[in-house]
């Protein structure tokens, strides 16, 4: 029914124009397919194989997985990530929200304060870890400083206390990320319709009540984003723990990320390392995919 394009030479050029976009996109897509999804498949397979120091493609069923789950260190790592993640998410969210609300009161020097609260986000976790390791150093850090300032009984040795060390990591991590969460909430607050609040003020509601009943409920989407972002950061956290405690004392601050690294590169237990990595991926996917889906879904018209 439809006739071919009228001029042949130009037709070839137009066909090229037609393929060009896909051609330009394809290198990235191929890289991602291979280096992300191919690798995910490979690692998944390894977690069901006999691999130790070298990959061994003999199928071993769930042997590596049961070794993983019976590992004492993996138990500690899971417990730690749970404690760390929960405290990290809750503290960052609450503190970030508090700072955002305080900053939202027409503060002079708001820009400077914001810059100060946010700068840790520009630092490497290794730098942060180094700094806090020194800051909380039991011999020479905060403790010693307090003593020299006259508070003789002050004692803070969490960093070397196997039961408490994970909390020092929480402190440093919260210090690093709160500013960012604050910025997210601040943007959310700035997006709220001021008319509604004026109306409530005219009705005579006290400020705290306005925040509790009107403003904070409207920040629901920001809470969701903040929690997803923080949970994702928590599960991936590796650098900070390596820099601050090296996973110690002993295994006290091991988390899945450090567990995976040490089984992969120090203990040469590829199979277990792969299984732990797949587990981490599964948790993050369960968290991120619904979030991405809801964030990127275009509203149907």
């Amino acid at each position, binding site marked *: 029914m*439809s*006739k071919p*394009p*009228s001029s042949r030479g*130009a037709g070839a050029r*137009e066909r090229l*124009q037609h393929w060009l976009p896909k051609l330009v996109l394809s290198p990235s897509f191929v890289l991602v397919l291979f280096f992300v999804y191919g690798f995910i498949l490979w690692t998944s397979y390894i977690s069901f194989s006999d691999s130790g120091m070298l990959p061994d493609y003999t199928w071993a069923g769930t042997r590596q997985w049961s070794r993983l789950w019976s590992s004492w260190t993996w138990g500690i790592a899971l417990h730690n990530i749970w404690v760390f993640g929960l405290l990290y998410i809750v503290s960052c969210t609450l503190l970030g929200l508090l700072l955002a609300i305080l900053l939202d009161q027409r503060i002079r020097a708001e820009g400077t304060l914001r810059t100060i609260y946010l700068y840790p986000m520009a630092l490497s976790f290794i730098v942060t870890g180094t700094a806090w390791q020194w800051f909380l150093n039991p011999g020479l850090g905060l403790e010693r400083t307090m003593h020299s300032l006259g508070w003789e009984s002050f004692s803070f040795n969490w960093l070397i206390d196997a039961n408490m060390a994970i909390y020092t990591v929480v402190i440093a991590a919260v210090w690093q990320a709160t500013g960012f969460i604050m910025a997210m909430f601040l943007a959310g607050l700035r997006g709220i319709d001021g008319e509604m609040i004026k109306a409530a003020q005219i009705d005579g509601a006290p400020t705290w009540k306005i925040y509790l009943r009107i403003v904070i409920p409207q920040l629901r989407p920001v809470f969701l984003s903040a929690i997803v972002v923080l949970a994702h950061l928590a599960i991936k956290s590796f650098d900070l723990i390596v820099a601050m405690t090296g996973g110690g004392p002993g295994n006290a601050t091991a988390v899945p990320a450090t567990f995976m690294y040490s089984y992969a590169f120090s203990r040469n237990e590829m199979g277990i390392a792969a299984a732990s990595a797949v587990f981490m991926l599964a948790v993050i996917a369960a968290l991120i995919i619904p979030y991405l889906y809801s964030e990127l879904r275009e509203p149907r018209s």
Partner: protein
Amino acid sequence: MSFLHIHNIHKRFGETHVLKGIDIAIEKGDFLVLVGPSGCGKSTLLNMIAGLDDISEGELRLDGERINDLHPSRRDIAMVFQSYALYPSMTVAGNIGFGLEMRKVPKAERRAAVQRAAELLQIENLLDRKPGQLSGGQRQRVAMGRALVREPQLFLFDEPLSNLDAKLRVDMRTEIKQLHQRLGTTIVYVTHDQIEAMTLATRIAVMRGGELQQLGTPQAVYDDPNNLFVAGFMGSPSMNLVTARIERLGGELVARLTAGSDEVVLPVVRDRAALEAWCDREVIVGLRPEAITDPSSANRQDGVIHEAELAVDLVEPTGADLYVVTQLGGRSINARMRPGSTLEPGQRARFAFDVSRMVAFEPDSEHRIRNPETVAPSEPAVVTSIS
């Protein structure tokens, strides 16, 4: 052979059938205005003519040549967009000359052409500015300059004036009309503005839901609508559309309308033959507000005037006119009166109906009831599609 021939064009976006067989043919030099409610497919049709959207089915011919599969840049068509779409990083001269540059027109020639277009639109002094430094009206001119400079066979305009304020819109409308008359170009123009459509068009195409409702001269579409939709859509304030009963009264065919507790009986003079068949049945009759006036300003020369006394419900002065609201056929209707009238709500007044302008529609199908021989007598070539 017409200059632009849109033949049974369909457009589907996946499952949604957006254009359902559009047939339009216009001649060289015509100014075709597409009107219709939002979402009826006007922009889609325009984009298909430009080649920016694929044609799902049907044929598009420009000056005899089939252009369905021709790349947009080789169709010799220029388009002015609603948002003007000026390239933000280029100067005005760069914007206007870009199309020529892409066509590898030598620099000197290009500069001369840009200069000519700029003079025509009186924007020579803006050539070195960036679009961000222009006012809305100036941007509009640059967008037109970009289209003009290529001297295309066909211009497409997609609501070009809708982002301007009311005053500027009127000025630009006049300028577009003058340009069209001076250059004699062929234009397809989309608008929401009734007055723009009426003043600019040599042909109006009314669309609804992806279907063409009527194609004709502005006057034909306005006075002789094909169906209830076109009657209600064209004109502002819109046509009064009310229920009436066709009866025979003393040998004469009349339309009987309730008017509050009274009745008004209007003689049928238009499409009488066709309305014979509707005797003792209800139809919908349409009368434009300017066909219902005070007796002294009635047009007794051209029209057939019938007077009746009705209650005044509401008086709305607009300055130029005075709209009087009254009850007819169970509805509130608008009558256009002399601005000086001293009518007041509650009062009774005499209204003059120009029954020669009364049109009638079938209540169910909403089609026009029209004498067969009077189908657009001035428009033998008109293509219509009602389905």
